[in-house]
């Protein structure tokens, strides 16, 4: 019985979060009309996300590309033509590894930062102060962060894809007798322009889940420093799980029709 009660409480709490998150999004959207407030702040946030995350995103993607290429070479040597390595590297990076790895890294880097920043502002009454001054926390704090993420995370994903493919190309040439022509032929053989759009669409959804959940958690922080820590952890864990769920759902919806 206590297990049932615990499950019931968990479900109710989950539903309550869904309701509050929906209200949070609608409330934040109302601040969109205050362009002169959020525009300059969005530019600062976009620069912070882009410049601050570029190196780590490209580095991790480069390693993912290299490992994909080397493992493909190891598994298929002698059984299938070498050009297939090009196909697998490009498809794996652009369809899956580029957007998902970038999103998971940024859930930790950007999501944690936003949740901690806003959580600290909540517990030190800075958000209340903003409201008391008749100003909208949505246009000052939420919209700039969410829009900056929606612009910069897909852009970083494109760069991560390029980094992963280039690194895979260089790595496979170092260990297998694959020529540039083989790799390019393989890369183009199964290539569909939709794959690039799909990668960016996924990144866009991931960006939404990272930024909105981080801002929501930060805004709902309670109980001082401990609460800030809890909000930050919850934001990273929730957005990471949501990224994986969205990855599956979007693959089903956009690729398996």
């Amino acid at each position, binding site marked *: 019985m206590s297990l049932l009660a615990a499950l019931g409480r968990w479900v109710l709490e989950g539903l309550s979060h869904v309701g509050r998150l929906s209200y949070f999004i609608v409330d934040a959207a109302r601040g969109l009309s205050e362009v002169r407030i959020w525009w300059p702040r969005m530019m600062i946030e976009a620069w912070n996300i882009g410049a601050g995350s570029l190196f780590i995103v490209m580095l991790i993607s480069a390693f993912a590309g290299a490992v994909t290429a080397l493992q493909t070479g190891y598994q298929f040597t002698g059984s299938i033509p070498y050009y297939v390595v090009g196909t697998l590297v490009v498809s794996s990076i652009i369809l899956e590894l580029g957007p998902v790895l970038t999103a998971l890294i940024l859930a930790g880097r950007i999501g944690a930062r936003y949740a901690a920043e806003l959580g600290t*502002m909540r517990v030190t009454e*800075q958000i209340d*102060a903003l409201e*008391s*001054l*008749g100003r*909208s926390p949505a246009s000052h704090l939420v919209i700039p962060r969410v829009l900056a993420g929606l612009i910069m995370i897909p852009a970083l994903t494109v760069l991560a894809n390029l980094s992963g493919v280039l690194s895979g190309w260089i790595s496979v040439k170092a260990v297998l007798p694959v020529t540039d022509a083989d790799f390019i032929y393989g890369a183009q053989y199964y290539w569909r322009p939709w794959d690039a759009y799909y990668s960016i669409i996924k990144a866009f959804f991931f960006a939404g889940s990272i930024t909105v959940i981080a801002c929501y958690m930060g805004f709902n922080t309670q109980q001082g420093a401990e609460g800030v820590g809890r909000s930050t952890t919850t934001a990273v864990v929730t957005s990471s799980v949501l990224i994986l769920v969205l990855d599956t759902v979007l693959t089903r919806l956009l690729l398996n029709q």
Partner: protein
Amino acid sequence: MIELQALHKAFGKQVVLERVDFEVREGETVALMGPSGTGKSVLLKHIIGLIKPDSGTVIVDGKDVSKLKRRELSEFRSHIGYVFQNGALFDSMNVFENVRLGITDQEKYSDVDYCRQRIAECIRLVNLTPETIEKYPAQLSGGMRKRVGIARAIAGQPKYLLYDEPTSGLDPVNADIIDGLVQRLDHELGVTSVVVTHDVRGAFRVADRLALLSEGRIVMQGTPKEFLASTNPKVKEFLERDFDNPTLAA
């Protein structure tokens, strides 16, 4: 005029305010006293609409605050200055930008010359040096942060000033400076003020009238003289620790 009628607020099972009636008349300064954790700050946040009551009404200048729509609430708040307990200054902004946010009239906010002049005036009013303007909150002492918080609250030339524990956490010298500042601003700016405090000495110094909140209820409202003459055990108990104080004795 601020009127709270039968205000009731609970967080979960914990009842914080229980049918509270409270009134602040035009031009007066009322100190709301009470031990820590009795709901003084919660009451203050109801006045500005940061917290909505479970039942009861908050009427300010004839308007029911909990029924105001988003834009109306924003407009209403532009006439109220709120001084937060720890200043609640924005860490990422310097003093100039923090105080500038207090200029709630958008035309004036966009006029850089007006802002410079107004911010310099507010900084002078709270006894800070002009050099403070360039500093960030992390570079200021606790007392200075509170004064910047007050400067931000008065920058928009509000009709009402709400102070949440303006002297808590300060040494007696700094607490006296802030009390003096509250008193002086009330006279110079002619605002209506509510000062939430558990500092009896400070309350008697700044307020025209006092109210004591205990266990979610207003125990007594009256002038300092009426408080000193009160036989209510809760009032006596609360004032007792400061009875030997020369300020009160006078």
